[in-house]
């Protein structure tokens, strides 16, 4: 073994930095998810958010435990590879890659939607070509910035996150104070309750509002004392996002608007949630709801679209950055061809990965935009895909990728609790069943099983209710598995089995690099004690 140390990421991310890193990714989701869910789940949108939110709390706690125990930059893909082996690690990583490419496409799309509130020339329904060209330009621009190696700083993320938390708190507090009526909420829920099919669709789209926890585990390798910090920041992040999502959903269903709501396309009066959830407005629902808050709406109408657009752009950028880094990590782990590890000689960034996954995102945007750009395609989509809009298509795939990768992460937690009981866990999900497994005392995580059942339900809802998602999502996974088999066969590596790795040595190195020396000593003592028993 060589004594030369691998280059390490600098541990400069503070507790607030860790929170804002995650918030700038997950916090942007509600800007996209709210309109989509209102359009699908109607009067049951708050219950759809609640169902997805409970599953999200389970996955959030799972990520928190895993990221605090294994503070490395691989995220879900690393946890699954370690718990379930190379093949499932690849499938989970490949699903995360789908999500990151959708992240790029969906959030750039929505960013332009929010800007269209101030610049009507960017409006997708009125000027589809302008909207499309600007989205493509944004994605290309983000790719170039990432190739050159320019990233938004942690300080900038922190500033935007703080501004957004204050702004959303103000919108929600004033909305509930001046415009909310619990009686209207109950009335809307009773009179506009959706069909079971629409409700399932709403739940599958609600998970879109909670995607992005990968960021905290991605940042784990750069966080100071991750085992102590991640549980604190992650728990706060999970609860903050849950509160915002539930509050927005309840407000949208039970709010008296400041201005009269425009009539619908047929000239009929409509309710707030109908207006927010239609195809023209579902990409900018938070800006519209902010505008309707009495008094504050006069100011919010100007700054919320800009704030939303910035947050969405940061989230889109995290898709460009994250996809290239996950592909790099998967190539380093022998799961993807080494071309994805190739570094630009001058800029020292993974250029091939950046170009490939940006190209995937551009093709997704093109597919999503086709119905609005070409009337023939619109009629074809109406025939084949129930007339799904572009943003719906992106939302479908986002939900599919998230549900797939998160399902594997739940199973990985169970597997790691059983196969790696010696790693010290500073944070442990509550509600466990103590038992013995292969001579070691282990704790079986009940919450992971509940979360897995919930996530499998969401995955099933996605496959049942999304005509494009149920084709494109599994096709993406099947294409990835074919690529994986070809690559592993050509390299002479086992296809379904894993390469041999010394996880104990790797774990000691991970804890040493994290600066968690007490945990490292505890881990070494646990190993000695276990070996002595055998």
């Amino acid at each position, binding site marked *: 073994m060589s004594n030369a140390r691998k280059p390490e990421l600098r541990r400069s991310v503070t*507790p607030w930095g860790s929170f804002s890193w995650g918030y700038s990714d997950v916090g942007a989701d509600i800007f996209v998810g709210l309109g989509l869910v209102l359009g699908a789940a109607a009067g049951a949108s*708050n*219950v759809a958010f*609640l169902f997805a939110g409970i599953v999200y709390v389970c996955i959030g706690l799972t990520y928190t435990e895993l990221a605090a125990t294994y503070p490395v930059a691989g995220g879900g893909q690393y946890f699954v590879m370690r718990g379930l082996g190379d093949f499932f690690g690849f499938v989970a990583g490949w699903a995360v890659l789908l999500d990151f490419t959708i992240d790029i496409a969906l959030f750039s799309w929505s960013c332009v939607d929010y800007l269209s509130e101030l610049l009507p020339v960017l409006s997708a329904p009125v000027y589809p070509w302008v909207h499309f060209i600007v989205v493509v330009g944004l994605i290309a621009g983000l790719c170039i910035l990432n190739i050159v190696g320019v990233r938004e700083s942690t300080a900038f993320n922190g500033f935007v996150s703080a501004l957004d938390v204050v702004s959303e708190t103000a919108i929600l507090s004033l909305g509930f104070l001046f415009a909310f009526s*619990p009686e209207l909420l*109950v009335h809307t*829920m009773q009179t506009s309750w959706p069909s079971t099919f629409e409700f399932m669709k709403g739940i599958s789209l609600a998970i879109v509002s909670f995607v992005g926890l990968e960021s905290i585990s991605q940042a784990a390798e750069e966080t100071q004392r991750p085992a102590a910090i991640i549980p*604190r920041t992650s728990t706060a992040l999970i609860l903050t996002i*849950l509160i915002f999502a539930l509050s927005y*959903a309840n407000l949208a269903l039970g709010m008296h608007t400041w201005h009269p709501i425009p009539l619908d396309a047929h000239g009929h009066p409509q309710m707030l949630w109908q207006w927010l959830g239609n195809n023209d407005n579902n990409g900018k629902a938070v800006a519209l709801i902010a505008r309707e808050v009495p008094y504050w709406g006069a100011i919010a109408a100007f700054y919320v679209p800009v704030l939303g657009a910035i947050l969405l752009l940061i989230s889109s950028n995290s898709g460009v950055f994250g996809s290239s880094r996950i592909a790099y990590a998967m190539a380093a782990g022998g799961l993807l061809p080494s071309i994805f590890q190739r570094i630009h000689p001058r800029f020292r960034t993974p250029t091939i990965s950046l170009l490939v996954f940006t190209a995937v995102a551009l093709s997704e945007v093109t597919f999503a935009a086709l119905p609005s750009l070409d009337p023939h395609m619109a009629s074809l989509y109406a025939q084949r895909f129930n007339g799904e809009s572009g943003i719906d298509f992106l939302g479908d795939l986002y939900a599919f990728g998230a549900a797939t990768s998160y399902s594997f992460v739940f199973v990985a937690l169970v597997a790691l609790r059983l196969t790696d009981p010696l790693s010290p866990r500073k944070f442990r999900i509550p509600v466990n069943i103590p038992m013995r497994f292969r001579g070691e005392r282990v704790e079986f995580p009940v919450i992971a099983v509940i979360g897995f059942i919930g996530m499998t339900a969401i995955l099933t809802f996605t496959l049942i209710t999304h005509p494009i998602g149920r084709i494109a999502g599994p096709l993406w996974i099947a294409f990835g598995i074919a690529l994986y088999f070809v690559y592993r066969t050509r390299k002479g590596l086992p296809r379904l089995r894993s390469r041999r790795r010394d996880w104990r040595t790797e774990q000691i190195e991970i804890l040493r690099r994290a600066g968690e020396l007490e945990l490292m000593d505890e881990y070494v003592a646990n190993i000695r004690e276990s070996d002595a028993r055998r």
Partner: protein
Amino acid sequence: MRAVRAVLAVALIVVGAIILARMIHYPIAAGFTGIILGLAMIGLGAVRLRALYGRVDRP
């Protein structure tokens, strides 16, 4: 600054408790989302208070 944060955390708990007490009287679905919202607010306030005054490792 620490005192301001503590006041905000306590305010969050109080607002959560008010929502909890108010929504508990409404029909099942609306009431249930309100209860979870209230509990999440109380939970977040408690997490912040624990981070401020509890025994936690600091980097």
